[in-house]
Structures are given as C-alpha cells and as structure tokens.
C-alpha cells in the first residue's frame, strides 16, 4: 500500500493538468481600472468604426503560457450594438455583451448574462481582444435571434469547459455562441438540426491533453467532463468559429486588437 501511495503521490506532483478556458463572470483585476476602462472603450470604438451591429468577442482570462495548444482565448461571447437604459433614466448607445457564464459556486452549471465591455475585460490576463465581425446579413440574423429571446432556447445549463459541439450533453460559452450563429443561419432553434448541421460543416479544435490528465479532470473537477466525447476530445473555440465563418463566406473581419490599439489578423 505504501509503495502504491508513494507512486501516486509522485505522479500527482509531477503531472500538471492542462488549463482550459473557463467562463467566469467576474475575476480579480490584473491591470488598473483605468487601463481596463480605456481598453474596453477602444474595443467598442474599433467595432463601431467598422459598423459592426453584432460581433463575436473573445478575451484572454488566463496567462497565455498556461493555455493548451490551439486555444488562444478563454471566453467568447456576442456583442450587440444596443440602446442602453441607465439607472438614471438616460439612454445611450453602445455594445451589450451576451454571455454564457459559469454560475458562481456551481462551476458545472451556467447562466446567460448580459454585461458591458468594461465588465467583460475586467479580470483579463492580457489586454487583448478577439473580434470576429460576421457579414452584415448574418449580423442581422444574430440580432434577431437574441432580440427575440431565442438564445435562451439554445442554452443548456450543463457546463463542461471542453463541451463537444456535436451534441447538447454539455455546453460552454463558445458552443453557445456557435448555436446562436447557426440558429441565425438556418433559421431554427431545433437543437438536433443545429447539431447535425455543425457535424457536417464545423471543424472544432482538438484538445491535446493526455487521456490520464483528462481522466483526472473528469473525476475531480466540476466543469470538466469527457462524458460527451467518444475517443479524442474536440471543442469549439473562438478561432475555429472565425474559420467556420470564413470558409462559408460569412466573415467580414477577424482581428486581434491589442492594448495600444495594434491590430493583427486572427486568421
């Protein structure tokens, strides 16, 4: 028993489990409030300059060195140009961000939450935004899905950070985003049809992690499950959504906006 124990301890101490992309609503501030505030406004102004009524927005909530290969953003959502009513009664224009966030204290469950750019970027590890602007007609369809409340019908609260986009057993923020896009494209909220369409046309990201690490995550971490996968693990990412839109001629622009306003091509 002692030898087995020692072996397991040694294994545990040397194994570093992969870090995946969680969708926490609020995390601790890594920059000054002024820096985050200015960056968030820069993102808004960039999208506004492009005339984006709806775009897909990504953030980096963890040090990039900790992210698995192929994953560049930790949280993805949809920003919609909106009329925003303030508690003072004043109405202003800007972007409202429609998120799927993990529930506080219940990491294996999620909820749909609207927040705003400074909320969205509050706890990021890097002042860097992913911006995917769909074609105008798809933007309008995305807005219609959200404005009609159909995004609620596309939500499955059972959360796994590595959710399989080809079934609806679990859902993460990027899969929810993909569901909304495809609900707009195919004009349906029928989940079976959406998953069938995704299987045929969407290429997800393979997660490169050892089966042992995934098994440990499956056993001990609430928001990691491989139950919805058979064999290798694939999930939706910000970048694979960009590639999907590009491949189907539904993409206007896909860029990464950095802290000083530098713009890099995403794809």
């Amino acid at each position, binding site marked *: 028993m002692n030898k087995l124990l020692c072996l397991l301890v040694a294994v545990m101490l040397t194994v570093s489990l992969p*870090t995946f992309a969680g969708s926490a609503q609020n*995390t601790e501030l890594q920059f*000054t409030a002024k820096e985050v505030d200015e960056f968030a*406004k820069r993102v808004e102004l960039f999208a*506004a300059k492009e*005339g984006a009524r709806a775009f897909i927005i990504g953030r980096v909530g963890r040090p990039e060195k900790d992210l698995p290969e192929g994953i560049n953003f930790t949280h993805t959502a949809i920003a919609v140009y909106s*009329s925003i009513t303030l508690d003072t009664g004043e109405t202003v224009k800007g972007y409202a961000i429609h998120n799927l966030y993990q529930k506080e204290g219940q*990491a294996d469950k999620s909820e749909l939450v609207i927040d*705003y750019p400074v909320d969205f970027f509050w706890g990021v590890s890097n002042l860097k935004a992913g911006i995917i602007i769909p074609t105008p007609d798809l933007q309008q369809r995305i807005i219609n899905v959200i404005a009609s409340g159909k995004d609620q019908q596309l939500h499955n609260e059972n959360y796994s950070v590595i959710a399989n986009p080809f079934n609806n057993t679990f859902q993460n923020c990027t899969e929810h985003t993909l569901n909304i896009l495809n609900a707009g494209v195919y004009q349906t909220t029928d989940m079976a049809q959406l998953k069938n369409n995704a299987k045929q046309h969407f290429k997800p990201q393979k997660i490169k992690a050892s089966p042992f690490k995934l098994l440990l995550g499956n056993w001990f971490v609430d928001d990691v499950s491989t139950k919805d996968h058979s064999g290798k693990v694939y999930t939706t990412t910000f970048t694979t959504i960009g590639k999907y839109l590009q491949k189907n001629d539904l993409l206007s622009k896909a860029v990464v906006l950095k802290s000083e306003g530098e713009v890099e091509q995403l794809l």
Partner: protein
Amino acid sequence: MNTLNKVILILLTTTSLQSFADSGASQNASAASKHSALAASHGSVASAKLGSAILATPLVIIGAIGSVSLKAGNELMESALSTTPLEITEKTITTAPSPAQIMKINQQEKL
C-alpha cells in the same frame, strides 16, 4: 483505500487542479469593488462618466437588409441605413450591481 483516496483528493485540490477550478472565485467581492475602482479612476467627474445599465435593447437596421424579418418585438428599429462609425457613448457602462453586491458595498463602507 479510504486513506489513499483522501491523500489523492487533498493533493489534487491543493496543487495542480487549482488551475481548473479557480475560474469563478470571489465573484461578489470583485463585482462590488469594480464600481468603486472605476469611480476612483474617474475622480471628481465619476458621476458624469459612469453609468449603470438596467436594460439593453438591440438596435435593428431598417432598410439595409430588406429580406430580414422584423417581427420580433424586443428590438428598437433605427430608421437610417447603417451609419459608420456607429455612435458610442463616452460613458463607461457597467452592469448595475445586484442587491447582494449593493449590501456588500454598504457593509464595507460602514466598516
């Protein structure tokens, strides 16, 4: 075997697994402090520069895309064609704090 399980659980929860599990910690505390931090960063003009949102209504374009159905009732319709750049408020907009967050802020202020 029980001892073995306990040892493994302790190791996992105190070392490497933390990288999975720390994504949702301290949400109320950080949400409460966000409003204070933003107000401080704006100084004496904070009240004019900050806004708490209570409702966001998507804006729909009329005329730009003729084939789009506008039957949904939860959006505002803009009469003009898409203008570029779109108007963006200079204010910093945040989600309005929840009652729990407000109470937490009030408690902190009392201390």
